[in-house]
């Protein structure tokens, strides 16, 4: 492990400001060790000794350094069927309600953002195949997006360690995965090809809008990384790419009501979710 690079208070503030402007992620003094550790690792890898040199390298985005640095800072550990109650809510309530509003042949669109290494969008796909009776008569598009491009590469590969599968029954693992080595599993080719993976930062309006509109968005445990202003921007971006009546599911510690009044709270048997009002009722 590399030693911690010497970074002054001013330099730390500089790099945090740079990260905030590029990603909306807010790193406070409390995260200093974490950021400094990642910084040191990048500097050691590039054989750069001084912060000033690295910062110039970063700002100039030499060899895609901005993306590499951001990738090193994102937390991507997750697992299949995480927060299963929201998946139950998806198949019991949300999709039925959205399906009723669709024209014949119109696809239901689901967005998992951020999707990390793909566990969530693949979980959604598996869950619907197993638990939503209409899955055979409806077109369903699932898109997984993340700011971390290394994660997206892994997601497209669809290979996972045993640990990511800890919530799945042996039957599900046998049905949807093939073993690739000791404690390694790869998701079935058909399933892998059914999920589209793209790069997106939820605070970037143009990137979000490029994804079209969705019926359900899973946006779990990312807004907590933003400050109030970026959270509001992200909420409005997500509002814009939900169809009227569409739903957004947040992580269990997050509340949209504390971020934006644009959404209505919907309480279902399995989960509380947020909804873009079905008809905005103005215009």
């Amino acid at each position, binding site marked *: 492990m590399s030693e911690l690079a010497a970074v002054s208070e001013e330099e730390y503030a500089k790099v945090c400001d740079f990260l905030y402007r590029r990603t909306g992620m807010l790193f406070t003094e409390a995260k200093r060790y974490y950021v400094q550790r990642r910084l040191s690792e990048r500097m050691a890898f590039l054989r750069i000794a001084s912060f000033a040199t690295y910062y110039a390298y970063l700002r100039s985005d030499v060899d895609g350094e901005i993306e590499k640095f951001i990738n090193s800072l994102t937390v991507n550990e997750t697992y299949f069927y995480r927060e299963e109650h929201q998946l139950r809510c998806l198949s019991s309530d949300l999709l039925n309600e959205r399906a009723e509003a669709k024209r014949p042949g119109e*696809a239901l669109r689901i967005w998992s953002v951020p999707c990390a290494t793909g566990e969530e969008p693949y979980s959604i*796909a598996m869950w*619907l*195949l197993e638990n939503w009776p209409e*899955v*055979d*008569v*409806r*077109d*369903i*598009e*699932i*898109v997984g997006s993340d700011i971390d491009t290394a994660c997206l590469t892994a997601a497209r590969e669809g290979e996972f360690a045993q640990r990511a599968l800890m919530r799945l029954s042996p039957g599900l693992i046998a049905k949807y995965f093939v073993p690739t080595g000791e404690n390694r599993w790869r998701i079935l080719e*058909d*399933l892998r*090809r*059914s*999920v*589209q993976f*793209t790069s997106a930062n939820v605070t970037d*309006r143009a990137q979000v*809008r*490029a*994804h*079209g*509109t969705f019926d359900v968005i899973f946006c779990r445990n990312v807004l907590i990384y933003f*400050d*109030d*202003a970026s*959270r*509001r*921007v992200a909420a*409005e971006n997500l509002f*814009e*790419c939900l169809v009227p009546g569409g739903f957004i599911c947040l992580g269990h510690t997050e509340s949209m009501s504390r971020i*934006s*009044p*644009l959404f209505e709270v919907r309480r279902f048997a399995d989960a509380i979710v947020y909804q873009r009002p079905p008809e*905005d009722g*103005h*215009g």
Partner: protein
Amino acid sequence: MPLIRRPSPPVEAAAPSRSLTEGTADQRWAAVRAAAERPDAVPSLAAALAQESDPRVREAIFTGLARAATAESAEAVAAYVRSDDAGLRRAAIDALRAMPMASRPHLPGMLADPDPDVRLLSCELLRDLPQADSNPLLIGLLERESSKNVAAAAVEVLAEIGRPEALPVLNRVAQRFGDDPFLAFSIKLAVDRIGRS
């Protein structure tokens, strides 16, 4: 497999109107959101806010001003903390909270406002400031506060972020409002918490 995959179609939104104050609410929303991405948009957003009646568009304007986080944007928002419309007051406070450093210069005036509602709402903004800034402001407010509700709001914030120098004023407030059991309870809680921290 019923799951399909195809390239995402971009969002089909209403074309933004050329002005932030003309067109349908959807068009104004689109215009405001596009304008908010430009650093020079504060004057036009502030002007639009004065005319806008749609809550959703207003919210987008507040977000745009909060995102700018300049002295000018904070000043434009702070004016609405004194609005007669409770929703607008609330939205203004939320926007000021989203730009704590830009809001900071407005706090002494807001905490001394003749309207107790303005003083009460302003107390919430102090939670997000460094303690060295927030404690003197809360102490100053409590020294002169005549409204029990405002005093209770300030005490509640002090219970979270108070430092030992706030203890004397808390004792004086307890004497001034000695007949109010809720305030007495809140003050005891704040004193205990500050004492333990």
